[in-house]
């Protein structure tokens, strides 16, 4: 087991090295920082970002927007998802809304939001709209997956409705909530940054990326991208960590 774990890590590392090698070869081929700067130069630029006087404001604003959008979509998704999971009528009502929000191109939502909202709010709104359907759908699926036999057992042993919700339903749907949160986050960060690129709030990773692109600072565009990937990766890890702590009983 341990061996296969190590060899998997080794393969992942090989894949990263492969990407870097392709990047380096392409950079040598184009031989222009305006098209593709070499990885080592970009790496130094990435480190340099931390020295940017507005670094915290920029990263903090983006993370905050993502989190606010995430929290709102969690509250909405949980609330509406639980009602839809219990009531088939409400589920039928909600389904088309979820399908429409999920299949609308993010860019269309952004263009509309640009007309309706202030620049700082656009990314939050977009994050919320892209994440909500994932969380909501997973909560509905989770409630439907609750084993009726367990609910029957609890009812037979005269457990109160409130305890059945807390001790049977919630733990049963928790894995679904977490997996919904994970896919939501994955897509949410991209949506937030796309929103920032177009709405240009004062601070935000998308804002600085757009600025860098305008001046053909390709290394800066890639450096901010790397940072965005790291943030997304960090949150994914955090969710997995929560999963391990909360779902000890699985496996």
């Amino acid at each position, binding site marked *: 087991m341990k061996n296969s774990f190590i060899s998997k890590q080794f393969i992942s590392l090989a894949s990263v090295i492969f990407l870097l090698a392709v990047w380096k070869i392409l950079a040598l081929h184009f031989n222009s920082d305006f098209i593709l700067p070499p990885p080592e130069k970009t790496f130094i630029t990435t480190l340099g970002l931390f020295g940017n006087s507005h670094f915290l404001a920029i990263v903090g604003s983006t993370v905050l927007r993502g989190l606010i959008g995430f929290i709102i979509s969690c509250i909405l998704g949980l609330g509406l998802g639980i009602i839809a999971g219990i009531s088939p009528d409400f589920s039928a009502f909600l389904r088309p809304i979820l399908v429409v929000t999920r299949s609308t191109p993010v860019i269309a939502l952004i263009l509309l939001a640009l007309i309706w909202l202030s620049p700082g709010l656009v990314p939050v709104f977009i994050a919320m709209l892209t994440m909500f359907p994932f969380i909501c759908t997973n909560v509905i699926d989770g409630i439907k997956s609750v084993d009726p036999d367990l609910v029957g057992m*609890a009812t037979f042993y005269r457990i109160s409705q409130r305890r059945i919700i807390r001790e049977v339903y919630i733990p049963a749907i*928790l894995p679904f909530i977490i997996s919904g949160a994970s896919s939501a986050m994955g897509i949410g960060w991209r949506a937030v940054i796309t929103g920032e690129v177009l709405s240009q709030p004062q601070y935000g990773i998308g804002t600085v990326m757009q600025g860098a692109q305008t001046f053909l600072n390709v290394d800066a565009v890639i450096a901010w991208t790397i940072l965005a990937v790291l943030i997304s990766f960090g949150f994914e890890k955090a969710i997995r960590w929560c999963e391990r702590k909360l779902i*000890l009983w699985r496996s």
Partner: protein
Amino acid sequence: MNLEIKNLYKKYDGNTIFKDFSIGFPEGTITCILGPSGCGKTTLLNIIGNMLKPDRGTLTGFDSKAASYIFQDPRLLPWKTVEDNILFVINKELPEEERRRKADQFIRLVDLEEFAKYYPSKLSGGMRQRVSIARAFAFPSDIILMDEPLNGLDIKLKLNLIRIFSLIWQADKRTVIFVTHDVDEALLLGNQIVVLSQAPVQIIKHEKVEAPVTNRSLDADNFKDLKKRLMDALGN
């Protein structure tokens, strides 16, 4: 007072399962109900357990009684440890200390003290069913309903579970209604054994077994005789 069902009528999916059916359960004894699969044994338990309403008929003596249920599959909450699964059915209004003491007591009775902090996924099928037995006794019930809880377990595990069950019951004689299609299980546990027919259900045999439930052997001569009579009644 005995628990009694009189003139029970029940249709299920258009099929008549019970038609003017009556049966009694002496309190503080184990009644085993034998019958071919699909004859309506589970339906009978569900009517007794108040999970299903009879079309007609009277149930006397059940009203004021609480029941535990040992299901065919153990129905443990996968996110609760053995201990918490048992605590789940123990009255929340009792002081925490007393609840834990009670849970521990029943965990010990089913020989699972080493596994109290385990999740059900880490236990074998037989161990899970032991938790289910402990839960049934930990719940302050007067009646214990059992729906083929030994199904799918090998003979050694079956005997072990029957031994554990009979020992706990000997010290805490609740009224047990045990549904099974396995004659041996009925012989080992029943104070009386009732054989049911195919639907519409009738009682085709009613036997009393005098030997104490904690000390029975299937090899005894009187058991072989009884077994033959029961098998004949079941038609195999």
